[in-house]
């Protein structure tokens, strides 16, 4: 921090307080960002990071406190003020128009439409210059719809730079990137810092925070609980401060694989819009083993999960469950066959937001005993079931009649875990089971998966987080463009090795080799 003493303060948040009813999302939060500095903003989900950024960008008005950019206070509640003052935000979910070119996307909204023709050449020259300065290689005339996720992110950054942003705020920027793309992004960020920009980097990934930031600020329960130079700390220390205690990551001893429980042979599915379908997959899940599926999102993971979960049927090929053909099953038959499904999106597909905990707990089992008989619900059995889950899976909530939308992501996920794990399922499909969860909940979910494996269940773990995949999996497949890599045993691949496959290269080489 010392070498920033002389540097100018470009952003100052002071005493920001924001409450939503009884919840204090931000409690007197403040920090300063200096020119040429990278701050990492760390915190569990619900720690108040999003609220803080929404206040900075005028989406929310703070109850108390001020935001100053370049020494000038921003008027509260005005989304344009931050942009005009030179703050650019790169959201986790991009805000680009797919049917327009990079050039059009970058210049959109920066000047009147009728001058589009005349100044096009100047705009293009400027974009090419910026792309060159910041090492953001992207074709200005390409349609955004045809770009990869990494390229789209570069367009988002270009958009901010084109608007003369001096401060870049990146919200979980690496969540969707391959390791190589992450390396490229970091190079761009280092260039930007060298050119005098300042960066706020919001992330869950501790080693990235260590790699890129000068200072770390940790939020917990809406308060700043730690602020210090990155060099003075280490990932374990940061993790401990985030959750407020020593983090006990589950120990993943190698599993002992048994017989194949679920086998896919020659399975293909049609493409879904931009997402590729599966390309003739052969694949089986063994008992007592966690199979990790690594890959950048949107490379066929969704199709595979839907297939195993009974949501779709293959266009060709077969699924067999312990030898029996189940190619034409449905979600209900999948559940009845003992498949536990933890869906990717717990808000949209895993739960019904306006149902209470009890109603959500029986979502998969309501049609049979003990929850109903001859079409009549047995609500007391349902309530007993949800109370049991609440106790045994440590779901923090006011009670079984609470609407599930009021629960945090972690507690929601625990309810889903309880729901699917109750019958000791033999096959577990965990699709992004810890996305967006805090470390405590992450460890809990992981230990449950390991416990299931140790009692002989076959687990398929789909994740975009390589650390998670490598920590838990006994065997790893990489999926790219709907193609599946050969299985890699635990410990035989480095992240860089897997990254090559994730970027789709290994497949070409394998094809050449064969």
């Amino acid at each position, binding site marked *: 921090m010392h070498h920033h003493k002389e540097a100018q303060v470009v952003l100052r948040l002071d005493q920001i307080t924001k409450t939503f009813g009884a919840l204090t999302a931000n409690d007197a939060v403040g920090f300063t960002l200096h020119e040429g500095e990278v701050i990492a903003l760390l915190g569990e989900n619900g720690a108040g990071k999003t609220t803080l950024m929404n206040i900075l960008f005028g989406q929310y008005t703070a109850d108390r406190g001020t935001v100053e950019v370049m020494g000038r206070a921003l008027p509260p*509640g005005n989304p344009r003020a931050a942009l005009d003052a030179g703050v650019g935000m790169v959201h986790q979910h991009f805000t680009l128009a797919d049917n327009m070119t990079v050039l059009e996307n970058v210049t959109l909204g920066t000047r009147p439409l009728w001058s589009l023709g005349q100044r096009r050449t100047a705009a293009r020259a400027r974009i090419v210059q910026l792309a060159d300065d910041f090492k953001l290689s992207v074709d200005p005339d390409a349609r955004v719809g045809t770009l990869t996720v990494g390229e789209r992110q570069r367009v988002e950054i270009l958009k901010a730079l084109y608007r003369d942003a001096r401060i870049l705020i990146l919200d979980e920027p690496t969540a969707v990137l391959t390791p190589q793309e992450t390396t490229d992004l970091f190079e761009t960020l280092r260039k930007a810092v060298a050119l005098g920009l300042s960066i706020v980097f919001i992330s869950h990934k501790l080693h990235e925070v260590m790699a890129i930031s000068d200072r770390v600020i940790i939020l917990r329960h809406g308060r700043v609980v730690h602020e210090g130079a990155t060099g003075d700390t280490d990932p374990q220390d940061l993790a401990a401060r985030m959750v407020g205690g020593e983090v006990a990551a589950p120990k993943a001893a190698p599993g002992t694989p048994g017989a194949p429980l679920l086998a896919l042979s020659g399975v293909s599915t049609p493409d879904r819009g931009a997402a590729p379908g599966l390309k003739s997959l052969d694949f089986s899940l063994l008992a007592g083993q966690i199979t990790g599926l690594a890959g950048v999102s949107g490379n066929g993971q969704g199709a595979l999960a839907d297939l195993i*979960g009974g949501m779709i049927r293959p266009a060709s090929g077969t699924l067999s469950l312990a030898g029996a053909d189940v190619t034409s099953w449905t*979600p209900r038959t999948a559940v009845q066959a003992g498949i536990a499904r933890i869906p990717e999106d717990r808000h*949209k597909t*895993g739960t*019904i937001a306006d149902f209470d905990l009890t109603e959500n707990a029986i*979502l998969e089992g*309501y049609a049979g005993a003990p929850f109903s008989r001859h*079409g*009549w619900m047995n609500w007391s059995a349902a309530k007993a079931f949800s109370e049991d889950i609440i106790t045994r899976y440590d779901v923090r909530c006011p009670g079984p009649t609470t609407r599930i939308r009021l629960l945090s992501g972690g507690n929601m996920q625990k309810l889903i875990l309880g729901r699917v794990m109750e019958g000791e399922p033999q096959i577990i499909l965990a699709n992004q089971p810890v996305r967006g969860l805090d470390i405590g909940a992450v460890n809990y979910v992981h230990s449950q998966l390991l416990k299931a494996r140790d009692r002989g269940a076959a687990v398929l773990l789909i994740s975009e987080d390589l650390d998670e995949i490598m920590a838990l999996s006994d065997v790893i497949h990489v999926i790219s463009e709907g193609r599946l890599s050969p299985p890699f045993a635990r410990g035989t691949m480095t992240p860089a090795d897997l990254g090559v496959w994730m970027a789709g290269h290994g497949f070409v080489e394998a094809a050449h080799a064969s």
Partner: protein
Amino acid sequence: MRLEPIVNPSLARTLAPPALAIAGTVVIASLLAMLAGANPFSVLGLILKGAFGSQFALLETLNRATPLIFTGLAVAVAFRARLWNIGAEAQLYAGALVVAILGAGLLDWPAILLLPTMAILAMIAGAVLLLIPALLKVRLGVDEVVTTLLINFIFLLFVSMLLEGALKDPMGMGWPKSARLIEEARLPRIIDGLRLHWGFGLALISAVIVWIIGARTTLGYEMRAVGLNREAAEFAGIPVSRVLIKTALLSGGLAALAGYSEVAGLKGSLTLDLSPGFGYTGIIVAMLALLNPLGVIAAALFVAGIFVGADSMSRAVGVPTYLADIMLATALLLMVVAILLTRFRVVRE
């Protein structure tokens, strides 16, 4: 000004919308009455008196509420599952048509057999009428708002054709009406001498049954799940298409009972002015009731009271009965706004 979601609305906030909607409606109706040159207090008083002020008025209101309870239930059941049934009007006429055909002498059965048979067949007719759009929706993704709405016009023209032709009453002096029902096909009065037929009783029973289905059966649970989040319902293994079809059958059947009760209970024959838009007003009733089956009874009484009261008020002071339409429209709009305010609070910048 912005809207901010309220995490856990209090009981007062939950009960506020109907109260606010009624209060706002009264204020706006008063202003309109003043515009029409009448004393607003006497206008409102006359509406109230005309709706509930005497035994005759009260019975009239209950009679008027009867078809509205049925169509309100039909809409509430469908909307709960997010099946947008705008076709209760046609389904009502389908039920009425069955009664007009079977009850005018075609089936010469005792009342105890004839009345339930007609009710069941009427429900089947209404159900089938909604089954077509529902199948088009789940099979081909055709928007049911469009199909149910258009079927209203087609079916009314079909009824009109029958009333001018095959079903025309030979004793009807040339009027487009069906032959009178035989005595066994008429719904009896609940209490001798009082002009209130068993259609009203059937409506109350239906509301209770629909409430029980919603709260106590797997079908009710499925319908709510499908309505609140179709994607999650599908993922969990709820047979979404089948639930929507069952919902359509129930909804169409309930709407048809409105026609059954109007012809067999009140009118005794089918004419084209059997329903002054009960099917559409059912949407207002269901929305005012927040789609709650028991709330439908209260909402139907409120709506019927305004119509009946406004008729009587109009005769007395000459303010047009359009005031009733305006009051209903106002109540509905205010209700929608008020519901928004229970879920969100307005934040002033």
